[in-house]
């Protein structure tokens, strides 16, 4: 039996509808990236500060490339999804160290609570996103976020020469932030920063599913002494740090 492309694709559509209409009655399993994000997962990141090299900016560079993030050349207006913060710990007389800071994909995100248009939202798997189609650029979320994770796009941007078509460029006047590279996560890959950090040999960052007790990140968060930034705020951040 031969089928043309339309028939095959149409069957795919029918299967997807079947999944939506009758959960439990699944005729053909859809590939992982075609099913909706499920609350079976809880994506999180773990950064080992002791392995983070103060001179290294591999994660930031990888993030800019992966997500087509432009540089405007004005530090006050530049977009940053991930940045490195230098810490001087005078009390414990430690040498200064750096840590990457990005959106913590908080369990109770104040940015989502204040958003008047529901542009900021939490996906079922815990990833906090901005639906830029809806964002009106009011910047309430930027004020609400205690981690300075969000940036407003101040200037119009053009697609970069060798841009990544998987990620849109941005419209002027919307707010954006780290997405945990959601397009990669949906395809079963780790975020670009994590991948680069592993490849660069420092291997300070890792990414995984906290709802899976067998995953490496679950094991490490359980057995090692890990911390989050400002846990006292009660937002339950999901970027965990080791050796802070």
């Amino acid at each position, binding site marked *: 039996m031969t089928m*043309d*492309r*339309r028939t095959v*694709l*149409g069957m*795919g*559509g029918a299967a*997807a509808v079947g999944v939506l209409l009758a959960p439990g009655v699944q005729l053909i399993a859809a590939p992982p*990236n*075609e*099913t*909706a*994000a499920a609350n079976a997962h809880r994506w999180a990141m773990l950064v080992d500060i002791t392995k983070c090299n103060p001179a290294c900016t591999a994660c930031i560079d990888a993030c800019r490339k992966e997500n*087509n993030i432009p540089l405007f050349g004005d530090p006050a207006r530049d977009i940053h999804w991930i940045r490195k913060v230098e810490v001087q710990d005078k009390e414990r007389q430690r040498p200064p160290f750096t840590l990457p800071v990005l959106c913590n994909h908080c369990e109770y995100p104040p940015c989502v609570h204040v958003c008047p248009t529901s542009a900021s*939202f939490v*996906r*079922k*798997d815990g*990833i906090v*996103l901005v*639906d*830029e*189609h809806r964002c009106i650029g009011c910047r309430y979320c930027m004020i609400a976020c205690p981690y300075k994770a969000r940036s407003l796009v101040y200037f119009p941007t053009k*697609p970069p020469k060798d*841009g990544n*078509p*998987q990620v*849109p*460029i*941005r*419209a002027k006047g919307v707010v954006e932030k780290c997405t945990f590279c*959601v*397009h990669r996560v*949906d*395809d079963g890959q780790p975020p670009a920063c994590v991948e680069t950090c592993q490849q660069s040999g420092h291997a300070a960052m890792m990414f995984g599913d906290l709802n899976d007790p067998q995953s490496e990140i679950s094991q490490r968060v359980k057995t090692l002494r890990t911390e989050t930034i400002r846990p006292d705020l009660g937002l339950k951040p999901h970027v965990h740090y080791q050796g802070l």
Partner: protein
Amino acid sequence: MVLLRMVMIVLAVLMAGTARANDNATSDNAANSLLLANGDVRLQKPKGDACIRPTEWMRRNHMDFLQHKRAVTVREGARKRSESLLQCKSCHPSREQFCDRCHDYVGVEPNCFECHIYPE
């Protein structure tokens, strides 16, 4: 009064007639004009053998379809690559000669491509 109205009607009909004649003239003269002889918008011939939905359906519903896909992709995380906007180009390589032709003709300005990259 009746006379005035009749004059107006005759004028209107005449004007419509000239406009039509002009339309025909341009489409006949310029080979790369926007319109075909039968009044259809001239679109780049698609490469593949079939669209992901019947062509007639797509003509009427592609906007609602894309909007729906946008919602389920962004908010639900159901990323069906075979139906992504990026896949359109496997059959319609040029946005200018496919999407934009119709949009220019009917005067709608969808803002998809302010952000989304239509791959080369």
